[in-house]
């Protein structure tokens, strides 16, 4: 069965979430949301997923702070962070680039919960579809949240890796470096190298990112697409047009 770029990202995310008890997704996150719901469907009822913006898949009752308190309690196993810039030590920048802070040339919305969740959530998946030297820089201009330093400070959380349109980088916490773990079907190591602004470890042979099997794709295109459509109808209309059409 053939699959789209988004379907590969979703199924890859679902694989990265295996074994989690509690996963949350933030604002404007249809692919992580679908990935988490897929992982839940495959977990035999062992995983809880909280999709921000959902009604049916949001079980929080204690206001906006509860997600952060869950992380502080050690209950939140996985979360997703992006970045206007991400560097090779896994520092992320959600604030702005160029010029002098706070009068940066480019200003993004801001750090949201990253300055906290990145430190507390054991399995943070860095997720940024755009894979370019503009985004993946040698050094971020502003550290919204720092990569793990191994300096002995309290830090149960941190990145397990970085997923883009081209590849999956695993993050090696000891070496404080990314390692190219798999390249998505149809792309090459050279393409990754050309479009990455930071240094990373690269084994001699890099496998292709595992393709989803037919059963997983079917599950995704039916039940999961329907579930995520509640929160992200436009995303579903675009990525799963058949389901969207059937639903109308």
């Amino acid at each position: 069965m053939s699959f789209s770029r988004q379907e590969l990202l979703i199924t890859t995310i679902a694989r990265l979430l295996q074994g989690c008890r509690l996963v949350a997704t933030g604002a404007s996150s249809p692919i992580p949301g679908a990935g988490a719901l897929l992982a839940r469907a495959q977990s035999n009822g062992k995983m809880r997923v909280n999709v921000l913006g959902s009604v049916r898949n949001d079980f929080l009752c204690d206001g906006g702070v509860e997600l952060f308190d869950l992380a502080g309690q050690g209950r939140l196993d996985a979360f997703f962070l992006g970045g206007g810039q991400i560097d090779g030590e896994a520092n992320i920048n959600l604030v702005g680039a160029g010029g002098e802070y706070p009068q940066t040339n480019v200003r993004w919305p801001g750090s949201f919960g990253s300055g906290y969740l990145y430190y507390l959530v054991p399995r943070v998946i860095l997720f940024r579809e755009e894979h370019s030297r503009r985004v993946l820089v040698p050094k971020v201009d502003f550290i919204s949240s720092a990569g793990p330093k191994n300096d002995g400070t309290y830090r149960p959380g941190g990145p397990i890796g970085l997923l883009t349109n081209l590849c999956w980088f695993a993050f090696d916490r000891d070496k404080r470096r990314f390692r190219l773990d798999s390249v998505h079907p149809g792309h090459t190591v050279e393409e990754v190298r050309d479009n990455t602004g930071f240094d990373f470890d690269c084994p001699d042979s890099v496998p292709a990112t595992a393709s989803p099997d037919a059963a997983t794709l079917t599950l995704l295109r039916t039940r999961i697409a329907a579930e995520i459509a509640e929160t992200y109808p436009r995303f579903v209309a675009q990525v799963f047009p058949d389901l969207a059409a059937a639903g109308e």
Partner: protein
Amino acid sequence: MTRELGQVPVHGLDQLAAQIPNGAKIAVPPDYSGVAMALTRAMIRRGLRDLHVVCVPVSGLQVEMLAGAGCLGTVETSAITLGEYGTAYRFQAALKAKQFRMMDATCPAVHAAIQAGGKGIPFMPLRGLLGTDLLKNRPDWTVIDNPFSKDEDPVVLLPAIRPDFAIFHAPFADRNGNVFIGRRRELVAMAHASTQSLVTVEEIRDVDLLASEESAAGTLTAAYIGGIAEAPRGAWPIKLWDIYDYDEPHLKLYGEMARTSEGFARYCDQFVQDQKAAE
């Protein structure tokens, strides 16, 4: 004579905005909790200056418009975003022009500092933040060594935030001035931390929210509330919970007009000044 709900005065929107002086520190909620946009327009009409806005923990169109209208002295927030409705042009322009002081934060830090304000404690510790430029640019935050740890254990302390006003919009108030806030507990935290809350509501209902356990659980009690105004569709063009949604065409129109300060001024003429009678 002013009407009262219990001990809470009921004002018109402009009267309610008149309670707020220049330089006031105000706490505002995120879009999903209920933003007092009609009151924000009244604040712009009033020509408020030098406001210190604490976003609990983020804001959008509200701060964008206050920035465009020159009302801001300080913005303390974890993000300013119009989401899929585009760029916060007026906010960005005012920031670049140094029209206000920017205090970038992370969501749980704002929540924690507001909770500290509501508990009357001088500060709250927070994990995370170490090694960030957020911390580096917040001289009001400090780092101590956790006195309960045997090993070195730096932890950030955030001073309590005590705003003058919590300002938000809710579905309804009851006949005693209690306000239904559901599970939007950041509204409770804001109200506790602030000297008083100025609240707009879709309507005033002749009920007693404290009469049943269920409704009381989702209630902000009147003791925190300094004034209420009735403002049907008072969060417009922002959504209010699941009661009404974003006004997408209007937000697109705003996004187009607000690209330039002239366009924003025309927007204000049309939708802020001229709406006075309507509101």
